[in-house]
């Protein structure tokens, strides 16, 4: 591993992994406790439509995917606030339509050929330094926003009705949370791919939820776990010449199953 660090691409990959870990650990905690994994998956997939739009109409790739996924996130937030029972169906539809739109627009754009595989699994080994800076900025924004609204977000996540009775602006916060999910998902997709985003958002918070005393602790342990997964995964992919994104996911998945096994073995101390 140490000799691998002499390559710039490897250093960038590790840094990208670290920055993605922070974002996914913090946002993933809210995704898991609010049970909006499906929504996050929907945003991540539908964002592909933004790539199609950007290439077809010839504007910036980043603007396309950011604008489109924020729009999709806003629609999904509105739908899940309005009609809770039907929300998952509508999210599923947006999920599919977004992807299909992206594929068709890219078909219609002559000369461009965005590899769907790299969208799915990313290319953490080819992250340019400029993307690292952008990720750092988004990381900072997300961490600042979450710490400013920390108690509001906790009360929204724990008991939305009670929070509303206390005058917490839950609707605005819900849109804010969705916007942050969209922002992080889009940033991280560019680097590590869609599938890895879902894995980093869900697996570490799921594991750390069991032994954390607060959401803050859960975020902290999730970030640590993410850093561990990405680093070990990258090392395995370097050593055995495997696809990096998939290697990271397999490391995370192994820990996920071990944690479930440990929980089964542990005597229960929860009453009633």
């Amino acid at each position, binding site marked *: 591993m140490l000799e691998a660090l002499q390559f710039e691409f490897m250093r960038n990959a590790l840094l990208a992994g670290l920055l993605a870990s922070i974002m996914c650990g913090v946002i993933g905690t809210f995704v898991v*406790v609010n049970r909006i994994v499906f929504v996050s998956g929907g945003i991540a997939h539908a964002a592909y439509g933004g790539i199609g739009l950007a290439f077809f109409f010839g504007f910036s790739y980043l603007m396309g995917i950011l604008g489109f996924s924020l729009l999709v996130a806003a629609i999904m937030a509105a739908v899940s606030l309005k009609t809770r029972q039907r929300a998952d169906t509508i999210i599923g539809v947006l999920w599919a339509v977004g992807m299909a739109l992206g594929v068709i627009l890219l078909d219609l754009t002559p000369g461009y050929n965005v590899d769907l595989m790299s969208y799915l699994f990313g290319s953490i080994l080819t992250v340019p330094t400029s993307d690292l800076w952008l990720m750092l900025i988004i990381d900072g924004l997300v961490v600042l926003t979450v*710490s400013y*609204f920390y*108690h509001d977000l906790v009360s929204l996540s*724990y008991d939305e009705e009670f929070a509303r009775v*206390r005058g917490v602006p839950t609707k605005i916060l819900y849109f804010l949370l969705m916007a942050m999910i969209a922002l992080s998902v889009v940033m991280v997709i560019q680097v590590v791919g869609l599938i890895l985003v879902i894995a980093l958002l869900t697996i570490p918070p799921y594991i750390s939820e069991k032994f954390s005393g607060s959401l803050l602790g859960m975020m902290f342990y999730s970030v640590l776990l993410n850093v561990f997964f990405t680093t070990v995964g990258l090392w395995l992919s370097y050593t055995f010449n495997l696809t990096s994104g998939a290697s990271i996911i397999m490391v995370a998945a192994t820990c996920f199953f071990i944690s479930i096994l440990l929980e089964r073995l542990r005597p229960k101390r929860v009453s009633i």
Partner: protein
Amino acid sequence: MSSPVIEVHDLWFSFNGNPVLKDVNLTIHPRDFLAVIGPNGGGKTTLLKLMLGLLEPDRGTVRVFNHSPREAAGSIGYVPQEIGINKGFPISVRDVVLMGRMRGGGGWRRFSRPDKIAARQALERVEMWEYRKRRIGELSGGQRQRVFMARALVGEPKILFLDEPTASVDQKGQTDFYALLKELNENVTVVVVSHDLMVLSSYIKSVACVSQQVFFHDAPEITKDMLEMAYHCPVELIAHGVPHRVLPKHSGE
């Protein structure tokens, strides 16, 4: 009496086109102890949520201390039904109680020293202080209910709404719980949704029967008319060996 705590005027509410509440008029006075009873699906919880401002009426108005429920948020305490949601949520008992001091709107450092002192007092009041560091999901249903009670009290409410507060509490716990409510009632208006009027009957001062319409009775008893209109049969009320008289003397005739 002094000005009312709650005034519900000409209120209508429907859900997905089905009427839930019709033409509701209700006035609750200070230091009342109101039991909201009625059949399941009759609209008890809906009425409570309308008074809390969690739902908006189709027609009519709800005024709390002559303000909208949202504006009156600071004087409202709410103990929701304990249905064991979010049990895995990583949060300590103390942090749950501190939520009752939320005032909405962000801020770097939210909870002040007075907030923490109030949280301690509220937890001591429900005898849960020693559990302050436990995760909320590790408690029993009854203990969690007391924590929710502390969360409602910590905001020093002038009116307390409770939705089926003793659904998951054992007999001894219920008695303690209502004794505490009675004590609080010396300063605080209490509105309890329950379908178990038996337990409540020696504490309450008035009854509202909810079954699409609301029948208010300003005494701790239910009349035969209310029963007939609210329930299809009164069996539910007189079935379990009555410890306190609830029906007025002549209702059996």
